[in-house]
């Protein structure tokens, strides 16, 4: 069956008369080529829907305090947002497959807690084993991966409802985190254990560099790796992805596992930053994580959204917090203002998103 054969056959069809439909199609095609670049442009516009809001915040910040437009403020804000960003990357990956994991916030708390607990001496409320910091970090990552894997298997293979199952896990893990240290904080961590969260590179916190790099790599992975594209396919229509031969279960569970690890890294960042692991590290974090992802354009039903968008979501929330603190907003009101701003950002993102024809 050479090309000559195919040509001959096509020729035969053509002799039957070029159909109107065929002519229409070619015309549509030509028009389509021009439309394609427009579509890409709109897609970017949608991703960057939060930029105007971020711009407004910068202006408000500048007028609020002379301390706002300074390197030290930006570097502090970046450090404060780095750990959140890590968990947002994690949750975004899971959201894109059309699922979610609430217990990421407890992984973010429990993983560094157990790591530090095994490393720190009894004076610092450790267990007293005083393992090497490297082992402690590996244990933290291992806990993240293991919890993620467990959640993944239960939700994907045994079809537990993701909401109720990961909620139970959230409560359970947070309880273990409290329990092993009897509600106390672990401190006196060795320098190498807190390195990621405490060091500065080129005048900028290492944790922020790492989070930016992770966002960048995750974005490229989603766009140019076959598994990244498969994640979008699974979130868009799981059954169609399965019928196309994609290893749906394996990828979904893998994403849960990966996300658990990223959550643990986020937790280590915070531990290093505040030089202690509190018994309630991670409390309520998941709401901010979802808020950042969703105002960044990640669809809760899966299959839509990009890492760039999620990144702008993290930046926006970080700056809101920064501006509120600099304006000396009463601590009792910060949550209310935060909530209101998230609502406005959502409305704004929706308005800009809907321009896209």
């Amino acid at each position: 069956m050479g090309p000559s054969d195919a040509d001959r056959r096509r020729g035969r069809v053509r002799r039957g008369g070029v159909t109107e439909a065929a002519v229409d199609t070619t015309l549509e095609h030509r028009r389509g080529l021009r439309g394609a670049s427009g579509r890409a442009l709109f897609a970017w516009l949608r991703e960057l829907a939060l930029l105007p809001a971020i711009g407004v915040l910068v202006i408000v910040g500048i007028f609020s305090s002379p301390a706002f437009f300074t390197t030290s403020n930006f570097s502090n804000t970046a450090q404060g947002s780095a750990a959140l960003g890590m968990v947002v990357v994690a949750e975004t990956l899971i959201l894109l497959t059309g699922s979610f994991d609430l217990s990421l916030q407890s992984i973010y708390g429990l993983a560094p807690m157990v790591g530090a607990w095994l490393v720190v001496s009894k004076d610092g409320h450790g267990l007293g084993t005083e393992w090497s910091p490297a082992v402690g970090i590996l244990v933290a990552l291992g806990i993240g991966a293991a919890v993620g894997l467990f959640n993944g298997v239960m939700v994907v293979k045994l079809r537990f409802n993701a909401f109720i199952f990961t909620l139970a896990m959230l409560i359970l893990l947070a309880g273990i985190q409290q329990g092993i240290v009897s509600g106390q904080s672990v401190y006196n961590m060795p320098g190498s254990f807190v390195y990621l969260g405490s060091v500065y590179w080129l005048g900028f916190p290492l944790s922020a560099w790492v989070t930016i790099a992770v966002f960048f790599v995750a974005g490229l992975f989603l766009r140019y790796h076959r598994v990244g594209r498969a994640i979008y396919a699974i979130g868009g229509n799981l059954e169609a992805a399965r019928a196309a031969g994609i290893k749906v279960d394996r990828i979904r569970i893998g994403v849960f596992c990966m996300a658990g690890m990223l959550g643990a890294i986020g937790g280590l960042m915070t531990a290093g930053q505040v030089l202690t692991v509190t018994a309630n590290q991670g409390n309520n974090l998941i709401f901010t994580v979802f808020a950042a992802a969703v105002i960044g354009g990640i669809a809760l039903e899966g299959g839509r959204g990009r890492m760039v968008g999620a990144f702008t979501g993290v930046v926006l929330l970080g700056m809101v917090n920064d501006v509120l603190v600099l304006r000396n907003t009463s601590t009792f009101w910060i949550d209310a203002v935060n909530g209101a701003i998230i609502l406005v950002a959502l409305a704004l993102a929706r308005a800009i998103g809907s321009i896209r024809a």
Partner: protein
Amino acid sequence: MSTAPGAGSGRLPEQPPAAHAEGIWKSFGRTRALEDVSLSVATGECHALVGRNGAGKSTLVGVLTGLLKPDRGTVELHGGPAPSPGDRTAWQARVACVYQRSMVVPSLSVGENIFLNRIEGAVVNWRSLRRRARQLLLDWGFDLDVDRPAGELSVEEKQIVEIARALSIGTRFLILDEPTSSLESKAIERLFERVRRMKQSGVAILYISHHLEEIYEICDRVTVLRDGMRIVTAPVAELDHDRLVGAMVGGEFLRAQQHEAEQTAEPEGEPRLRVENLTVRSPLGDAEDVSLEVSAGECVGLFGLRGSGSVAVADAVAGLLRPASGTILLNGRPLDPGKVDRAIAHGVGYVPEDRHARGFVPTLGVRENIALPIFERLSRFGLLPRSRTGTAARPLVERLQIVASGADQPVAELSGGNQQKVVVGRALASRPSLLVVVSPTVGVDVASKEALLGVIDEARLDGTAVLLVSDDLDELRICTRVLVVRRGGIVRELSTPPWDRQTLIAAAEGFGAAA
């Protein structure tokens, strides 16, 4: 509320039409969907609305049901001006549309579904609700238990619930959108019976269907739309099949050009697909002890009614279902049971039955949907640049004449015919040695149907073995051999086309299976 059926006197000349649309224009952005379209449906008339996908039928239905506001033109219902756009209650009392996809609430009972959102007072009077629902079903001759949960109902019964709901509101103008697309032949007969009964009672019906023979059977007049314009309105008796199709496709369609199987040389050697004693359990009908062979260059039709088990065989070969017993050999090697990715790697291309459920990813573009099964093959070190998927998809887009605004237009935005072409393109992307196709042209227009069947036939002539599972006799014309499936087993084999409709249907229904 419900007037007794039979009391109506059919079409009275002095009565105003149930629905009258005059000079409707409607555009979406730069796309003109309707251009000066007028339509009148008389009381007691069944009026067919036909046209290819994208001809403007859905837009017209939107205008007639008040979901879309026309740019220009007027709609009158039952002689009075149409209600204001926001007044859903007023619209619902005048017109109802039964869509292809069911709108019943599965967790509620039949009775509750019928009176959904119309319970009087704050407290539900279960006894009266049940009584009224039962009376309504009785009045219209619908046989349905009002206490059954709607989730348990068949497609046909859900349709009845929706029709009953509309009639209970007092609606006397019904739009049926592809009502037969998921019904088996007996259910279609019963639907026609209900349509006739409603006509007699003075209900006006706008009937939308791709199946032209249905239109000749139950409709009085037909309106053809093409490219947003009304081409013709005429009594069905005055418009024969060829002229009707001609009006729909605008002269581009020549009967002689229809694809029909062209016999190739006798298949020789080992068959591509050999299925031995296959038993598959499936909610859509089991297959029991099925054996069959498909050789290169052959298109074997598996003809069976819904629930006959023919689809289960296809799903098992594609790896979507794990067979209970039996073997599936591709090119002499056994396929791993129940593993789609292995089946694709071994050379199986698959077009599933329900394109919305399994066929495509609505959020992804044409390019990626087509390349989906070959992501692994296309990627280098896991990386999958756009250019590679583009190169893989482009020839198929051209061969199938997929109309899209670009390779990245989400498939959700395409017309049904083009979506189906994407699904077929996806199956062909892996250059399969065996193509398993289930009802490839269900719900698509005449021209798309020809294009799809043409491409499948071309693949066969290129040496692909094709297994075509269908309950549509028209699709079988590209087959070189037809097996009839009934109650999970093969009951009849026909090996010389043309296929005799009577024989096929008789065998599938279980009459004359012995012959």
